[in-house]
């Protein structure tokens, strides 16, 4: 079996949650595997990450270089091509860095690329069997991958539960001298932090969240009226922001905000993983969707199959009615 590596994303000296998830994914490929972590960066932050990774990996490859201070996928790809043994399997989280790195890396390594894997069923000979999703999670597929010349695999964040087994006490191997001079044709300039909006959805305990099912800008008022009646705020999924119906600061998800409400009303939201990843703290989730097969119903606590444009105004009226009754 090929040697398995996990590229670990980190920030300000802290390894991403995927660090432990990738160990679990590696064990699904080969239960006997003891995967090797690879981390790039420089300075004290990098050392801090290496020392935490020693508790979940038996070996940690450290690649330190000033040019790697910011994770530029082009430079890291070149470094990985230099250090990875032929035929290796490399795992990386399917998020903005993995998406940037992995497809091109697979070409340069001449290995197979497998994207956004949710389940690893096992390996038969040189065939890796995995489960992926298509159509925004509406359907899943069994996929067979020929990994005879190695593989680069991006793994869905949160899909693999970290193992509870005894921690390792791995060694750190410094590979920095093997990468040579790296030159990039894409250069990192700066990070621009998202602007704060008029409403801070991360501070609200009740959210009326709308998706593409709201259909047009004028209908946003329907959700706002319900939110006003409940004492909640309106948040949304990405297409609502893309269409400029609400500000970016209202978006829940990987490329938006992480919210921790008590109650989350998902109205006309299908339940894509990038959206769900922004809902934390195990809230009571209500899904209102006209499609009974929408994936959101798999994660919601309560579901209603209905047209939100009709349901929400009637619900708002009921809430108002109840308020007047209880005020008397």
């Amino acid at each position: 079996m090929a040697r398995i590596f996990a590229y670990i994303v980190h920030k300000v000296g802290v390894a991403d949650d995927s660090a432990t998830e990738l160990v679990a994914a590696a064990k699904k490929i080969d239960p006997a595997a003891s995967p090797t972590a690879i981390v790039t960066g420089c300075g004290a932050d990098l050392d801090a990450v290496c020392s935490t990774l020693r508790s979940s990996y038996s070996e940690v490859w450290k690649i330190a270089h000033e040019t790697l201070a910011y994770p530029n996928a082009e430079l890291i790809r070149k470094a990985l091509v230099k250090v990875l043994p032929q035929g290796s399997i490399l795992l990386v989280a399917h998020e903005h860095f993995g998406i940037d790195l992995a497809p091109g890396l697979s070409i340069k390594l001449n290995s197979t690329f497998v994207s956004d894997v949710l389940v690893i069923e096992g390996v038969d000979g040189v065939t890796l069997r995995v489960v992926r999703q298509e159509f925004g999670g509406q359907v899943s597929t069994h996929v067979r991958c020929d990994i005879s010349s190695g593989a680069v695999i991006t793994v869905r964040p949160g899909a693999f539960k970290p193992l509870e087994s005894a921690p390792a006490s791995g060694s750190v191997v410094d590979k920095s001298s093997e990468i040579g001079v790296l030159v990039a044709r894409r250069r990192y300039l700066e990070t621009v932090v998202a602007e704060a909006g008029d409403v801070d959805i991360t501070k609200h305990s009740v959210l009326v969240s709308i998706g593409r099912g709201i259909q047009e800008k004028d209908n946003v008022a329907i959700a706002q009226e319900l939110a006003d009646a409940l004492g909640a705020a309106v948040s949304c999924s990405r297409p609502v922001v893309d269409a400029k119906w609400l500000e970016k600061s209202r978006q829940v998800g990987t490329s938006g905000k992480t919210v921790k409400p008590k109650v989350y009303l998902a109205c006309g939201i299908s339940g894509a993983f990038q959206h769900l990843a922004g809902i934390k703290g195990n809230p009571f989730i209500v899904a209102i969707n006209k499609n009974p097969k929408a994936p959101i119903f798999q994660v919601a606590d309560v579901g209603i199959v209905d047209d939100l444009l009709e349901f929400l105004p009637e619900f708002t009226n009921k809430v108002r009615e109840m308020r007047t009754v209880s005020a008397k």
Partner: protein
Amino acid sequence: MEILVCARRVPDTSENEIELNSAGNDIERDDLVYSINEWDNYAVEEALQIVARVGGNVTVVTVGGEDDEEILRREMAMGANHGVLISDDAFRGSDGRGLATILAVFVRKGPYDLILTGVQAEDGGAQVGGMLAALLDYPFASLVNSVEVLDGKLKVSREIAGGNKEINEIDLPCVLSIQTGINEPRYVGMRGIRQVASIPIPTPSASDLGIDPATVGQAAAKVKRVDYFVPALGKGAEMLQGSREENIDKLLELVAAKGGLK
């Protein structure tokens, strides 16, 4: 600037409920509404806006069959100068790498300074742009949500976690994968589509492009989908099955109990 946009025709998930066919080996494709992949439409709009600022041409290319021509016409109605349908039975069943291989050959034969793809299509693979760049040995940026043209290079912003933006400079020629929301794609009416209906669309084949059929298609694919299925629900939601009035009453009760009324 000569810009090539790689696009694909896909079942429109906002218009369709995706269901399995009775054999379970595919989705039910009868009655599906197809459209251009959402991400690709933003890519074409971005290309048109760049050309409006700095001059040049926009070509939209897709790998597929005759049904796929409709998206090329649609994007030409938006303003793209050319459409190209790369088509050959040998391309059937190509995986991401196969598609990137075909597109790379096409790019090398053309004058393109900038190649755009969508971030991903209906399979969520997010792979063709990055592979294409690597095959061409061009620099690449994924998840791009703004583009500014400088001298011999671009300033692009990438979408990273939490709505933050990573600003980069990237040398031309390059490949970018375009994220939704980068612009507001213009509307296309039936009239616009009729106006471009008679413009010829070249349909180069594998041999026209000099592509070895053994390097693409089903035979070369290392990643193969075996079937489609709908996973058994976990716990799943408690579905309220009453009339709308009953559902509203029940929901109000539940929401109030969970602290949803402030």
